[in-house]
Structures are given as C-alpha cells and as structure tokens.
C-alpha cells in the first residue's frame, strides 16, 4: 500500500513538474526569449517520441520472445535519419514553405489542395493511431499493476486507472496543445515537456541497463556470456522479417502523424536536421543498447510466466531496487504520455482541419466566413478532436481488453500509416503523381492492410469468422486474408506489408499515369518537387471580385484582429497605400491564404478565400499568370538588354555616318578647288592666246602656233571633262558593262598600241603563253585600265632604259596581271593616295594628266569584280590588277 502511495505521489509530482516546464517554456517563447528552446538538441530530443512505451517496455519483451529482431525497429529510422539529405531535408523545406500543418495537409496540398485526399489520410491516421494510443494507455496501466500488485484492482480496477490517465492526458494536451492556433507558431511548451520526458526515459532505461549489467550480470563480459547461454543465444531472424520490419519502421518515421508533427511541423530551423541526423540515431542506439541484456537476465531471474514486456520494471523491483523501479516507471510513463500528447495534437489538427471545419463551413453556408468567429470554432474543434482521439483510444483499449503482446499492435499500426508513404514520396519526388493516383493508392493499400492484417489481428470471430480466415470469403481460396493469391508467406505481417504496399504503389502509379492533373495540382507538383529551385509561393488567385474589406473581416476571424490588421497594413504599405485595405493582388491573396493555412490547413484556407472570391478553383490563366511571372520578368529584362544593345549599335552607326559625311564634305571642297584649278589652267592659256589672236598683227607661223596651242588646251580640257564624266558615271554605278568573250593577250596588244608604245623608248616585256586566256568580261573597260597603267609607266618611268614587265599569274581564286616598271617607284607615303582623285605624285604636271587615271582604273576594276592595287617592293612602280577567276572561260595556255 505504501509503495503505491509513493508511486502516485511521485507521478503526480512529475506531472506537475511537466506542467511547470511546459508553462514556462510557453511563456518565455511568448516573450521571445526562447532561443534555447529552439536548439537542435531540443529538436532531437523531441523526435524521441518515436520511442514510446512500446519501446520502453515492449522492446525487452520483443527481445525475450524473438531475439535480435527488435533492433529493426530502430535501424529503419536510423537509416532514414542518416539519409536526411535525400528526404527529410526536402520534407522540412516543403513543410516550411507551404506552411504545412500535418501529413494530411501536406498530401492534400501537393495534390491540388484536395480535401478528399486529406480526409483519406486523416482516416488512415486515426485508424492506425488509435490502437497505438490504446497500447500506451495499456502499458501504463500494466506497469502500475505490476508495481502495486493487486492493490490497484481494489482501488477502482485497471479500467478506472486507464480512464483517469486518458482524461489527464487530454487535459494536458488541450492546455498546451491548443494554446495558439497557428500550428506553425509551434507548441513550445509541449516540445519542451517531451524533450524533458525524452531525457527521463533515456536515463531510466540506461540506469536499469547499467544496474542489470553490473548489478546482476557482473559486468560486460559475463553478461555477454549469459547472452550466449540464453534462449536467444543464436541468430535466428528470418530474412523477410528483418527486411520487412526495417522497411516498415523506416516508413513509419516519415508517415506516423506524430513523427511528422515533430519532424516537420515543429521544426524551427532546417539546420536542426543536420544535428538530429546523427544525434537521433545515437539516441536510438542508446535506447536499444541494454534491451538484450535486460531481456536475457530477466528470463534468467524472473519466474516462469512473468510478462517479459515488464522486465524493465519488475527486474529492479524483484531485486529490491524500489527507487530504480520508480525511475523506470517514470520512464515508461514519460514514453507513453509524450507519444499520446503529440499524437493527439497531430490527429486533432488533421481531424479538425480536414473533417470538422469543412463540415462546419458548408453547414454555415458561404456567409459564415464573414459572420462567425472562426478562430474560436477552430480551437473548439481541435479541443474536441483531442478528446475524441483519446476517447477512441480508451474505447479501443476497453473493448479489446488489452492482453495482446504489445509489439504486434505497434507493428500493425505502423503498417497502416505506412500506406501514405507512396503518395508522400511520390508527391515530393515525382511531378507526374496525381490526385487520382494518390487516392487510388491509399485506398487500395488501406483496404489491403485492413483485410490482410488489421481485421485478422483481432483473432477469429471478431471481424472475420474462423471459416473466412481459413478458406477465404465464400470458400474462394485465393482471397484468404493471410494468403492472398494463394501465396502463404508464413508470416502474416510480412505477407500484409508486401501485398498492401505493392498494390498501393501500383495503384498510385497506374492511377497517376492514366489520369490528368488539374492546373493547381500541376503547379503544386512543380513547387513541391522543385522546392529547392523555386522560391515562389504556392497558390494563385487572380484579381477577382474579392473585396479587401471582406477579406479583412474573414482574416480577423481566423488570424485574430491584431495579426490580421498588421498583415493587411503591411501589405497596403508595401503597395504604397495608407490604411488597412490593400489592393487584392494575386500576391496578396497568396500570402493571405498561406497565413490562414497555418491555422486551418491549406485546403480550407483555399476554399474560404475561394468563397469570398466567388469561385473555389483556379483557371489556367491564373496559373499561367503566376507560373510565367518569373519568365516574364526575365523576358522583359532580356528585351531591355537587347534594346540597349540596339541603341548602342545605332549610335555607333550614326557616329560613323556623321564622320563619313564630314569627310565627304571635306572631299567635296577639295574636289571643287581641284577641279577649278584644273579647269582654270587650260582656260587661262586659251584666253591669253585667243586675246593675242584677236589683237591681230601676227604672221602666219605664229598664228598657226597659237591656234595650235588653243586647240591643244581645248582638247586637254575636253579630256578632263570626259574623265570627270566617266568617273562620275562609274562611281554612281550607272555604268552598264558590255561583256563579251576575248583573249587577254589581244586586250593587252590593243592597250599597248593605244598607249603609243611603238614610238617610245619604253620596252614592254610580256609572256605571251601565260596571256593565252579567254575572258568573259567588259574587254573595252579592261583595255582602258591597261592603257592607263601602261601610259603611267610611259609618263613616269624615269629609268635610263625604261622597261615595263607585264606578268600574268594564276593565284587560285584570282587572276593577277602585274605591271612592273624599272623606275624609281612611288614613295611609301604616297602609295595610299595614288588611287584618289587628282592625286599626283610629286608636283610635276608635265605629263599633262589631271590625276584621274588611277581613280578611274580603280572604279572600273571594281565594277569588273576585281581590285587594283599598288604592289610595293618590286624595284619600281608596280600595279597589280586582280580579276576573279570566274571571268576566265578557257585556259588555253600553260
């Protein structure tokens, strides 16, 4: 009797202590002094709700029954944590960017904010978690019974104890789990309390373990010796179960609602994951380190028929270590309560957001959003949900009466919630996953699980008759629940995992392949799968009929007046509007929806805004508007860049044109002055001599001489004007070419003759063989060029024995005709300008040219498709005429 009183007192003191911790944690968080609350250590410890009373008590029982197999339950989560970079990091990032409140919310949000999907996940979670809560209640009751012997039964019976326990847990959860509405504001008090409980259970188990090894076993060596002599001395684990259980526990750590709550929803900083990735496996390792020694020594020391599930408690008790036993009880109590509290919070959020609120909203009609105090309703519905969840757990425990081995309920529960795994992983890694696929997969998997595992687990004659179990429905053998398709695996759990998970995955995959996602699904899919690339926000509302005032009224009901007003005011300010009513831009609506999603879930928030906007779904145009936003900005910036480049180009062109115009103006002036000068010289002599003739008194000879001079000057004038005319025609491109066939040699002969070589001292050297080419071009014009070049040599070659060599060369693409004399050549400085109009080397005008010859040559050759240039370094003046090979029709020579 005494020990029970002490136990009750200690338990109550412990509970009071937890209340105090939670209260102060909440208060300091509210005051913003919660830095230490948000450390990675607290985060890691809060994950320890994975280790429930099932772990604390049940693992030893499990080990006593099946040996090392129990380790799979810890190895699976360890692998997931070690692989945080793959999955958890992404989940946490999505959870934070989408303001996810639960696993149901995440899946619903990913698949187009579908509430039906959220309902399915919620149902799976409730069905899967209720037995688990019952299990916790049962374990605490069992522990209490073991402690107090029969005393507990006399003071109201185990059932009453369980009821009190459930009520107490409900009270604690309501008090600290529903203090604030926004799930993303986190439950600092609760998290702190479960972190403390995590320490208590670890310390308790380690203490019992140390006592068992050193107090009873006699040290590590002897204990290992005892293990080798025990019933579980041999490694005897079936491969299927080893793998199956590892898979199951790995998926449980992702899909269990309570694990999702602490991993994703309560996560404060992504970097905490980095610490938890090794610290949580270390915690799990410590928790399981002493399980086998405790089991082995318990089997050895405890009487036949003692419940191995309670060895952690009964072993110290039987050794008279009451304090240690008390600590052990508190450890188990902590395990059970922390799990129940978090599970109740997680489940109540889901039930409230996805079942109660939608029903309430539709019952109220669309006016309700503006009229009712939604905040209050949400809180109330959550509180009721918590009580409902715990009531369900209690009822489950009461109906089944406990009695089953703890671990098997736990594994059945794991297998149930694991049915959300394909939708969850598919949703975050595969863009092609659709709502229909997720729905099919989860429903099929859940049904398969219920049929092959859950219902048979109650034993024959509860849900399924013995006949049904043995021979299948209506005697159809291949539908037997524990041997689907005639494949009897032997182990019903592995059988169920294989079938439910593969059918689930298959249905999910096929369903996704054949269905077509809505625009919102596709947008959300892209944002989930590429969460590390996208920083854009989810959602999408086009500027609609929404009145900012209506929205404010609604937001006040959900977020609370001050939060809603400050949100609206800051938005208005960012839009440059004073007051509380911003423009209802799509960005603002997205932001508002996100804020509200933190309170009531994504699907409900979307639906509520949809009601005010007058429609609950998005159009493709909306989506495109949102999705293309970035693309548009980029395109705009590209356009700007292109325009700027174009402007630079234009400016450059204008500058060049301006320069050219200036040059041309200078050239024109120079040209005019040159031409006046050139015209003036012959005019002057014509005038002078015609005056002499007019005055008379001249003899015949003088008369003839002066008339001859006038005639010569007039000819020179005419030639100058002819040249000018010719040049102008050529420069304007108005010249029409008279193309015909002819031999190059003939053209050169003709040019030589026209230039008057025969009567001069100039000796022309030619290679007749090389000139034997047939050309198709304007031969007269070509001859004009040749005449010019030959006359130049004639006029300017200052050698004593002038000599001109005309050489024809085949340069591949071009035909080169070189005119090289043996004179002094042209000074380097002048070589650039000799082809310009009126340019003459030196100052002598003796040759009588106006300096237009080479300019004309250049124009002509240009028209013929070639070039004429000065060839330096040939020992005299050298000009090269290049003609394209295309003018050569036939190569008779060489």
């Amino acid at each position, binding site marked *: 009797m005494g020990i029970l009183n002490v136990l009750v007192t200690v338990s109550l003191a412990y509970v009071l202590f937890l209340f105090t911790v939670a209260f102060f944690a909440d208060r300091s968080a509210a005051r913003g002094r919660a830095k230490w609350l948000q450390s990675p250590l607290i985060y890691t410890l809060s994950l320890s709700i994975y280790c429930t009373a099932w772990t604390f008590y049940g693992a030893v029982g499990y080990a006593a029954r099946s040996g090392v197999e129990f380790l799979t339950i810890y190895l699976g989560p360890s*692998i997931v944590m070690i692989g945080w970079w793959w999955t958890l990091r992404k989940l946490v990032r999505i959870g934070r960017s989408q303001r996810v409140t639960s696993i149901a919310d995440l899946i619903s949000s990913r698949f187009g904010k579908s509430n039906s999907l959220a309902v399915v996940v919620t149902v799976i979670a409730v069905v899967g978690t209720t037995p688990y809560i019952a299990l916790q209640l049962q374990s605490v009751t069992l522990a209490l019974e073991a402690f107090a012997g029969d005393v507990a039964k006399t003071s109201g019976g185990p059932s009453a104890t369980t009821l009190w326990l459930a009520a107490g847990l409900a009270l604690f959860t309501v008090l600290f789990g529903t203090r604030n509405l926004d799930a993303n504001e986190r439950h600092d008090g609760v998290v702190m309390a479960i972190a403390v409980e995590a320490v208590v259970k670890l310390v308790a188990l380690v203490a019992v373990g140390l006592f068992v090894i050193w107090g009873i076993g006699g040290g590590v060596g002897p204990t290992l010796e005892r293990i*080798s002599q025990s019933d579980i*001395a041999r490694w005897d684990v079936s*491969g299927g179960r080893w793998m199956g259980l590892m898979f199951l526990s790995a998926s449980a750590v992702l899909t269990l609602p309570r694990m999702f709550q602490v991993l994703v929803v309560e996560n404060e900083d992504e*970097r905490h994951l980095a*610490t938890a990735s090794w610290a949580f496996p270390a915690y799990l*390792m410590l928790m399981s380190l002493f399980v086998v020694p405790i089991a082995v020594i318990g089997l050895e020391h405890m009487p036949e028929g003692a419940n191995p599930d309670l060895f952690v408690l009964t072993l110290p008790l039987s050794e008279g270590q009451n304090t240690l036993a008390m600590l052990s009880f508190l450890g188990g109590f902590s395990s059970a309560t922390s799990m129940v509290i978090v599970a109740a919070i997680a489940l109540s959020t889901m039930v409230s957001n996805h079942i109660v609120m939608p029903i309430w909203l539709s019952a109220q009609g669309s006016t309700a959003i503006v009229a009712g105090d939604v905040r209050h309703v949400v809180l109330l519905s959550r509180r009721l949900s918590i009580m409902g969840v715990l009531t369900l757990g209690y009822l489950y425990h009461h109906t089944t009466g406990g009695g089953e081995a703890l671990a098997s309920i736990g594994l059945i529960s794991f297998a149930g919630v694991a049915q959300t795994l394909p939708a969850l992983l598919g949703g975050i890694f595969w863009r092609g996953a659709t709502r229909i696929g997720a729905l099919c997969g989860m429903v099929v998997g859940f049904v398969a699980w219920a049929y092959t595992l859950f219902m048979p687990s109650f034993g024959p004659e509860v849900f399924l008759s013995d006949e049904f179990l043995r021979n299948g429905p209506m005697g159809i053998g291949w539908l037997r629940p524990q041997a689907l398709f005639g494949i009897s695996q032997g182990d019903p759990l592995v059988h169920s995992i294989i079938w439910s998970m593969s059918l689930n995955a298959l249905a999910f995959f096929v369903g996704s392949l054949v269905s077509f996602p809505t625009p919102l699904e596709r947008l959300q899919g892209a944002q989930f799968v590429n969460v590390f690339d996208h920083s854009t926000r989810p959602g999408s509302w086009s500027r609609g009929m929404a009145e900012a005032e209506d929205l404010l009224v609604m937001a006040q009901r959900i977020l609370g007046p001050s939060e809603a007003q400050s949100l609206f005011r800051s938005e208005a300010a960012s839009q440059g509007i004073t007051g509380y009513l911003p423009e209802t831009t799509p960005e603002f609506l997205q932001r508002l929806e996100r804020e509200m999603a933190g309170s009531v879930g994504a699907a409900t928030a979307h639906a509520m805004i949809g009601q005010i906007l007058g429609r609950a779904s998005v159009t493709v145009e909306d989506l495109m508007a949102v999705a293309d936003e970035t693309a548009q900005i980029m395109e705009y910036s*590209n356009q700007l860049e292109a325009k700027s480049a174009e402007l630079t180009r234009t400016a450059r062109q204008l500058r060049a044109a301006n320069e050219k115009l200036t040059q041309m103006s200078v050239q024109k002036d120079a040209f005019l002055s040159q031409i006046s000068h050139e015209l003036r010289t012959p005019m002057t002599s014509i005038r002078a001599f015609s005056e002499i003739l007019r005055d008379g008194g001249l003899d015949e000879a003088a008369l003839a001489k002066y008339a001859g001079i006038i005639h010569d000057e007039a000819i020179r004038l005419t030639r100058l004007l002819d040249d000018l005319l010719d040049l102008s025609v050529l420069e304007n491109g108005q010249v029409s070419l008279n193309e015909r066939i002819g031999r190059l040699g003939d053209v050169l002969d003709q040019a030589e003759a026209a230039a008057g070589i025969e009567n001069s001292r100039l000796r022309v050297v030619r290679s007749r063989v090389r000139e034997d080419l047939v050309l198709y071009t304007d031969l007269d014009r070509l001859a004009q060029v040749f005449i010019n070049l030959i006359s130049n040599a004639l006029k300017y070659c200052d050698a004593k024995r002038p000599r001109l060599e005309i050489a024809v060369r085949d340069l591949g693409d071009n035909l080169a005709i070189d005119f090289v004399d043996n004179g002094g050549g042209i000074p380097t400085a002048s070589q650039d300008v000799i082809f310009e109009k009126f340019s003459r080397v030196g100052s002598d005008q003796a040759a009588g040219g106006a300096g237009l010859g080479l300019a004309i040559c250049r124009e002509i050759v240009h028209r013929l498709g070639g070039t004429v240039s000065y060839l330096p370094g040939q020992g005299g003046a050298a000009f090269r005429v290049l003609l394209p090979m295309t003018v050569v029709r036939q190569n008779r020579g060489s």
Partner: protein
Amino acid sequence: MGRKPENPLFLERQRYRMRRIMDAARFAPVLAAFLFLIPLMWGAGQEVPTASALIYIFGAWAGLIAVTAFLSHKLRKMPRDNWQERP
C-alpha cells in the same frame, strides 16, 4: 546574356569539396542499408551467436553515427542557401 549559368562546369576548390560532401551525405543511407542488411547473409547453416551479432550491429551503428556526424557538421557550416545546389 551576362548571366551566370546555374550549374557552372568548373567550380572553385571549396565549392567542389562541398558538393562531394553532399554526395557523401547522399551515399550514407545506402551504406547504412548495406551494413544493416549484411546479417541476412548469416542465414542458414552458419551459427552466429547473438552476442557477436550484437557487437557487429552496434559497431556498425556507432560507425555510421560518427560518419553522419562528420558530414552533418560540414554541411551545417555551409550557408543554407547553398543547400539547394544540385550536385
């Protein structure tokens, strides 16, 4: 034009190291799964004492924890924005 490509071909040494550490973090769970599945090979015929099995599993576990702690420590020091970089 003028924009930095998202996944440049060549990285400076430090960023290159960082990415290899990310690769290692991705590989760690594969290694863990492999180590924890080795007991499957102890199957029939071979009598493995539970004590040895425990020593192996806990040894492997502790080793993996140490490796993960090392990698996480490196990754933690990196600015969070870099976490999104592709390999």
